[in-house]
């Protein structure tokens, strides 16, 4: 990555962020302010039609059943990157590598099913 591209990339991000920020400020100018009495009217409590919303501490998501997928996710992220930069390597090596990865996925599917 050359110097010019990195400057351009940085300036593109800065310009985009500036645009987002200016839209945000314009929105702040043209929208009504939230006043104190409104806050007391319950506008700033989480949305649940005026009911007591389900307490956040009890909202637990069962991520354990996806744990094995998460581990495989990490391994395969490396796999994708290795394949992506493999175009100068001999073809049989990439194919061999892909075959091993395919076997790993098959094992995962068989174990889960």
């Amino acid at each position, binding site marked *: *990555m*050359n110097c010019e*591209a*990195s400057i*351009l*990339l940085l*300036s*593109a*991000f800065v*310009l*985009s*962020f500036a*645009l*987002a*920020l200016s*839209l*945000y400020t314009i*929105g702040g100018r*043209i*929208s*009504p302010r*939230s006043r104190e009495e409104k806050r007391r009217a319950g*506008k*700033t*409590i*989480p*949305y649940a039609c005026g009911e007591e*919303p*389900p*307490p*956040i501490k*009890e*909202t637990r*998501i069962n*991520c354990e*059943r*996806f744990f094995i*997928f998460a581990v495989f*996710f990490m391994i*395969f*992220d490396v*796999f*994708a*990157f290795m*394949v*992506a*930069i*493999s*175009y*100068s390597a001999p*073809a049989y090596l*990439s*194919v061999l590598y*892909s*075959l091993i*990865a*395919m076997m790993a*996925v*098959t094992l995962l*599917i068989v174990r889960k099913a």
Partner: protein
Amino acid sequence: MMQNVLLMAFQLLIFPGLVFLILLAFIFEWIDRKVVARIQSRYGPLYTGASGILQPLADFIKLLSKEDLTPESADKLIFTLTPLLSLSLVLTALFLFPMASSHAIINFEGDLIFLMFILTLTVLNVALAGYGSASSYSVIGGVRSALQLIGYEIPLAISLVGPSLSVGSLSISKIVEWQASKGLWMILLQPLGFAVSMICLLAELEMIPFDIPEAETEIVAGWMTEFSGRKLALFRVSKDLKMLLTTALLASLYLGGAQQLGLAPPIIVFLAKTISMLLLMSLLRALFARFRIDQLVSGMWKYLIPLAILQVMLVCLGARG
């Protein structure tokens, strides 16, 4: 020198830069809404502008001028920063695509990897937004969005590697150039990879078969529940831009992107290709119903990853064997 800088500034700001991209994103939302409405025997947006073409812009301005409420329990910094980040990240990624010529404004070796980094970052941003709103619906939506990432990120990455393997470069501009010089579209060489990345990008967009993070029948609006006013407006426009981003990705990698076809200049060809991809996505969105999250994750690993790896192996054997 001065002229170069001015030209660059024009390209970054006006065409094919920020102004053009945002207007195009609004038009894309209009097309999407109109097509889905027609498939469902509705009219879709009708009144603002000619057959409702200004409706997304009107919605955006309306949201900007609405009261911006921050829940008491929310993390103020995250709650303010995530809408800004979601818009600016997607806009930055859009500069990597060649639109007005065969070269993107920003092109360097490896920008495909950078693009995938940004796509992942937007999802993490969503998870952070859900976490920062501190409402149970938002938290559930954010976690679901991260879980969904575990499903579709790998097949997407592997199938996007396919075109770059054939070309021998990780730069989107070079992949587009290669297709133009060979007069051959990548979709003909790698139909499997195209199908896999199409499905994964639908999941990336949280469109209907995969709209698990914002399933409105169970968790209100998912991670977006607590956002209102200008923050919601920024999220909406960044979603439209993401639609543009995914269609541009498909069009550039698999349909030849911005190339000169006969008399048609690259920008017209690019628009035609992205809009055709958008029509396909809207069609899929209107046809399917929502999957369950375990169906999504295990289905992606069961079917899409083997298909994507198969595609990569075929490319290795065919293109360089």
